[in-house]
């Protein structure tokens, strides 16, 4: 295993040191492993908390700041944070207007946030609402299973709903909007290589030179199927088709994100986006805003995911609103 780390068990603690050194505009609670804005708004804003396993950077710590999150709870690599972290963060950020927990749909994340919500309500009486994102079309949905994974839409949701909270909307409105954003977004990912979890010390799976994994999430899991390696145009099709056949994006503007999975350089992401844009145009999807880069990653996995969000004028306005975070910044 080749990584810029010290000991595998110290990866999270050490990385958080770097975050606090690099970002004076953030405050890192190293004991609870929570990243806060150094200068929280001082009254009445609905607070947004997200969190999850580490290894998906900039998600979520890189999205803490004006116009997005108030706090991010950092779990061990690929492991949901624990309820006490969330309870601590919830108590710290609440300004009386309540707290929205933004949770990606994974059994672990959902259960830990659930316990945190129960504990926070019992301990402090803070009103906590939760939105669970589940936008990954690679996963067959069914009431009998764990449902779809929460992936790329989480990034767009944190930006858009963060702007709404910054404007002063109340918790019901914020919750409502967040559920609508999740319902209107779809994602699909693919991998050229596995990633290596530091504590495991070797790649999670082997992938021959002539194969790729379609329908991967962000935890280095194998995808829905292993298929022959293809060119970017063909890969774009395999990513875009399942998204478009799952939801109708006609008749309004869309926001599109193409995120790298951590090990793929920007030149390839732009190249793939060129192919994605052609397909979206052909299908009549009107792309109003675009994000290309590493936004929701899976350690050092090579590959990419596409997220399409059905927007409207209001959503675009919130998207364009100023944001000042380590991972997404404009207007400030």
């Amino acid at each position, binding site marked *: 295993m080749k990584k810029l780390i010290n000991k595998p068990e110290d990866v999270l603690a050490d990385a958080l040191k770097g975050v606090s050194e690099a970002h004076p505009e953030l405050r890192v609670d190293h004991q609870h492993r929570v990243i806060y804005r150094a200068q929280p708004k001082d009254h009445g804003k609905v607070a947004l908390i997200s969190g999850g396993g580490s290894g998906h950077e900039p998600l979520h710590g890189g999205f803490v700041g004006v116009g997005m999150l108030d706090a991010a709870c950092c779990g061990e690599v690929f*492991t949901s944070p*624990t309820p006490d972290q969330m309870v601590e963060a919830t108590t710290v950020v609440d300004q009386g207007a309540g707290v929205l927990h933004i949770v990606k749909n994974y*059994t672990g994340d959902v259960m830990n946030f659930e316990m945190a919500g129960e504990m926070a309500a019992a301990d402090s009486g803070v009103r906590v609402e939760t939105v669970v994102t589940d936008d990954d079309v690679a996963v067959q949905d069914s009431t009998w299973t764990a449902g779809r994974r929460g992936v790329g839409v989480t990034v767009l949701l944190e930006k858009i709903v963060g702007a709404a909270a910054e404007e002063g909307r109340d918790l019901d409105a914020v919750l409502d909007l967040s559920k609508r954003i999740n319902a209107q977004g779809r994602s699909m990912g693919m991998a050229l290589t596995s990633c290596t979890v530091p504590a495991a010390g070797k790649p999670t799976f082997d992938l021959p030179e002539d194969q790729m994994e379609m329908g991967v999430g962000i*935890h280095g899991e194998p995808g829905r199927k292993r298929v022959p390696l293809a060119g970017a145009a063909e890969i774009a099709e395999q990513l875009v088709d399942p998204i478009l056949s799952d939801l109708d994006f006609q008749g309004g503007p869309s926001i599109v994100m193409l995120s790298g999975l951590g090990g793929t350089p920007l030149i390839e992401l732009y190249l793939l986006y060129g192919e994605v844009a052609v397909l979206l145009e052909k299908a009549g999807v009107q792309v109003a805003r675009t994000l290309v880069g590493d936004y929701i990653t899976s350690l050092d996995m090579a590959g990419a995911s596409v997220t399409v969000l059905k927007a409207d004028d209001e959503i675009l306005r919130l998207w364009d609103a100023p944001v000042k975070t380590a991972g997404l910044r404009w207007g400030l």
Partner: protein
Amino acid sequence: MTESVSVATLVDWLSSFRDAVHEQGTYLTELDSAIGDADHGANLIRGMDAVMGAVAGEVSTVGSAGDLLKKVGMTLVTSVGGASGPLYGTFFLRAATATGDATSLDAAAVLAMLRAGLEGIVARGKAEAGDKTMYDALAPGLDAFASALESGRDVLGAAEAAADAAADGRDATEPLIALKGRASYLGERSVGHIDPGAASSALLLRALADALAAAG
């Protein structure tokens, strides 16, 4: 073999489970690599190391079984994360409620403790038989424990039967399609692999038998 299980023996159980997850950590992570996210071994090692740190003084101060198990549950909940943290955490928290103030447990109390724990896992995770989770090792394990007691075996014999049945349950997860947890994202591709949580649960029941044997 005495029929009464002391708090010290419960600590031995935990210690034995800690040793087992250290020994089998790589194996558990390999199982999780195949159908999950390659962290189950690291998660349980982190959790059981934290548990043994937290209960270090417990035996000498002679707390109740409930105090011990509650501390174990809270430590797992606050140190593991992921799916297994809340699940094993809830197992021990519910087990604590079942044992309460008792400082020694007879065979029936041990069964009640385990059953309360499993009910906690079900309440938290909604798993059913055949979903390819830790439930599929624990449930047959507990059934075997109960049957063994009914047929007159002592607590050690029951724990041994439970460990054997849990191991069988673990192996029986191999052909299943996962319906819960992150293995479910793989659909058909989850077939042919043992569930990592079932494997760790089988270790948990084996550790109980080992601790009882040593106490014997």
